[in-house]
Structures are given as C-alpha cells and as structure tokens.
C-alpha cells in the first residue's frame, strides 16, 4: 500500500515518551490537561500580585499534554482515511460520535447554568473560547481515554 508523505501529527508518536502510550497514562494526561491550568489559574488569582506570574509556566502543561496525547494515540482521532486501516477508521468515527455527544452535554449544561444563573460574570466570548477548542480536542481525549493499551510486540 502506497502511503502519502507522513503528516506532522504522525511524527509526534516518535517524540512522545513511551510511558504515555499506556491507557492509564493517557487518562492521567487528559485529567492533567484540565486540572493543572484550573488549579494554577485559581492559585494565581488568589495571590493577585506579581508573584502570580510564577504560575505562568503551568500554561504550557496543557499544550504538552495534548501533543503527547496525539502522539500516544497515533493521531488516530484526526487522521484522514488514507492513513488508517478499516478498524482505525471505525474507531475514529466512533470517538467523533462520542465527542459530539459529550460536547452536546457540555453545551446543555452551560445553557442550564446560564438559564438559572443569568447574572454570572461570564461573557459569551469566554463561553465560545471554551467550547471552540473543546470541540477540536475532544475526539483525541475520547480516543486517549478509551483506547486499550497497545501491543508491545509487533
């Protein structure tokens, strides 16, 4: 089978640490993606001085987590058909379906919150700024969360 030139996200598999390929490690990275910026941001908000800049390096954690997750899943959530076999295509389509459902649930939750608490100091821009990247990242998170450990022996 002739493969087109290797895309960038496939190369991430080679620079992703081996431990990140385990399902438990992938789940840890998904949790870290959300938790680390939340905790660091909250802590920085409480300090509310120049010292809060100490938390700035934590902003890179979610980026590293996501890049490792793409590498650890072999970019299976975002690859076109020609790079995947029939099982991988079926898995990719399934994670997109699940990611769509999760996104729908998040939007419904947000809608309920804004309905019952209309005076929340959260602008519409912030909501879109959260939902837009979430829509793009969720398929990779869903795949990373559900895909079993890979076979060690080829």
């Amino acid at each position, binding site marked *: *089978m002739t493969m087109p030139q290797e895309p960038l996200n496939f190369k991430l598999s080679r620079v992703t640490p081996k431990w990140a390929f385990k399902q438990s490690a992938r789940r840890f990275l998904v949790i870290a993606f959300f938790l680390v910026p939340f905790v660091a941001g909250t802590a920085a908000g409480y300090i509310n001085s120049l010292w809060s800049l100490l938390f700035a390096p934590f902003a890179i954690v979610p980026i590293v987590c996501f890049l490792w997750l793409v590498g650890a899943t072999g970019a299976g959530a975002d690859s076109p058909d020609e790079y*995947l*076999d*029939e*099982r*991988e295509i*079926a*898995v990719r389509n*399934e*994670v997109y379906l*699940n990611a769509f459902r999760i996104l729908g649930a998040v939007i419904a939750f947000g809608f309920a919150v804004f309905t019952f608490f209309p005076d929340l100091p959260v602008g519409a821009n912030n909501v879109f700024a959260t939902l837009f990247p979430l829509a793009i990242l969720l398929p990779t998170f869903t*795949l990373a969360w*559900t*895909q*079993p450990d*890979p*076979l060690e*022996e*080829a």
Partner: protein
Amino acid sequence: MKATKDKTPALAIHNRLPVLRAERNLSRQDLADAVGINFQTIGYLERGDYNPSLELAFKLSEFFGLPIEAIFSKTPFKPLSESLYNKGVV
C-alpha cells in the same frame, strides 16, 4: 461495531490467525504489511476483539492461500493436530 467500549464484537468470529502466523514464522508487523493494515489490528483480530470486513478477510485468505472458512469460523476451531489426527493424516 463496539470497538472502544465493549471489546467483544456482537458476533464472535473465531480465527486461526495466530496458528497460521506462527507456522509461517511471521510477526504481526509482517502480516500487517502484507495486507496493508496496522499491526495493532492484527492483535485485535487474533484476540477476537474485532471482526474483519469481507475485503480484509479476502486479503488474508489470498495471503495465506487458504479459503476464508479455513481461517475464520462462527464456531471455535478444533486444534489443528486433532483435526489432522481424525482425518488419518497423522
């Protein structure tokens, strides 16, 4: 297909892929390269976690030079040695 939640497909299809691969001294990667799939998918097939499409079943059949029913079955295969002994080959 229940590929990620429930690993077992709805219809269990048994196969002789591990035996055929071992007989020919092939790694999963060798077999995967021969039929144009990821070697992880060979593992899924061997464990019965994934049922192949008709196209993939034909590719495997052609590669091994065996009819599809010699590789895949809806009922568990008898051990090859037992099948040969009952036919008087051994």
